[in-house]
């Protein structure tokens, strides 16, 4: 019904904070929408469904508690569509994967990361995903010296490993993108297997609160394994894959995998 009768859009409140990413025109519409729904007096809230009529005016709204229940959301949407005399049809916007890979230059490398806790229940209905883009210079930091032979070992610059490992935690409550990890120990050791391949072994010891702003930090313990395929001629990374070999968030086991976008696993 969302595709056939509505124009769906999701908005992260974080983008509309003072330092948020929303452009001025988007902010103006967001403020106007809030003002109209406040005046409509059917309820407002940060996490909520709002329906705008085709002319853009505030029409109806549904609290998140009800919106999470199909038996309440479906009749609400049907009622809105009926009252607005919507003629159902094809989706106005073609569906596409969310989140899409971020735009990045031809010399950059985009890694797609998937993290999932292995217990059941809230926050475990679907995995978390992140995109990490490595610049040309950052990729060079992953490579051995050009003359390195098989068996050569090196440790990755902690700034580079942190850029990836900071996402090595399962789903937690993340109302914004603030990095609240406390790194205790992190290391990624590489060993050249050939001029075009290196093995990665590593470990991570990090603390993170499940909820933001809380003092009860959970210990993250992880052993990591992966590989880098190197293009020796261009001195770039042809593929990079890094996964948890075994990892725990407190007592809960979790898994994280980061791999080059387009490495064939999608």
């Amino acid at each position, binding site marked *: 019904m*969302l*595709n056939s009768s509505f*124009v*769906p*859009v*999701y*908005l*992260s*409140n*974080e983008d509309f904070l003072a330092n948020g990413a929303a452009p001025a025109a988007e902010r103006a519409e*967001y403020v106007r929408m809030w003002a109209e729904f406040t005046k409509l007096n059917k309820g407002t809230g*940060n*996490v909520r469904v*709002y329906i*705008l*009529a*085709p002319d853009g005016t505030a029409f109806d709204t549904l609290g998140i508690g009800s919106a999470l229940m199909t038996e309440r959301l479906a009749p609400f*949407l049907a009622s809105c*569509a009926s009252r*607005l005399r919507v003629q159902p*049809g094809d989706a*106005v916007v*073609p*569906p596409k*994967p*969310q989140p899409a890979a971020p735009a990045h230059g031809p010399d950059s490398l985009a890694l797609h990361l*998937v993290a*999932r806790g292995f217990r059941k229940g809230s926050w475990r*209905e*679907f*995995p*978390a*995903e992140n995109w990490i883009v490595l610049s040309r210079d950052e990729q060079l930091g992953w490579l051995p010296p050009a003359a390195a032979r098989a068996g050569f070992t090196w440790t990755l610059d902690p700034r580079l490993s942190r850029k990836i490992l900071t996402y090595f935690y399962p789903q937690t*409550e*993340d*109302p*914004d*993108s603030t990095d609240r990890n406390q790194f*205790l*120990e992190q290391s990624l050791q590489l060993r050249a*297997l050939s001029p075009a391949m290196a*093995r990665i072994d590593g*470990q*991570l*010891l990090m603390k993170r609160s499940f909820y933001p702003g809380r003092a009860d930090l959970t*210990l993250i*313990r*992880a*052993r990591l*394994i*992966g590989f880098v395929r190197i293009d020796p001629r261009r001195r770039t990374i042809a593929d990079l*894959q*890094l*996964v*948890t*070999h*075994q990892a725990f968030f407190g007592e809960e086991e979790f*898994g994280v*995998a*980061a791999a080059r976008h387009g490495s064939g696993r999608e």
Partner: protein
Amino acid sequence: MKKCSWIAWLGLVAVPASAADAGVPNPKPVSDAKLVEFVERQAVAWLPASHEKRIDEIGWAPSLVAAKELARRSQRPVFVFTHDGRVSTGRC
């Protein structure tokens, strides 16, 4: 003992001195010969399943401004979902 010394001491006992002290797992080693197969298998196994990506089945407008313009042209209402964090990545 000064109060700050107590805090430092507490910090030392609360934070494991090393990964080994903290009980970082020590799983069965993977040989070089099996490395790629092991890592790729794991990376694929943890990808979101189709039932975990129902959000991809919805044609989302890229912004509120765009949604309102598309609504005006198509005479459809706009479904706006406001949320904290990033619902598209599951970090929310």
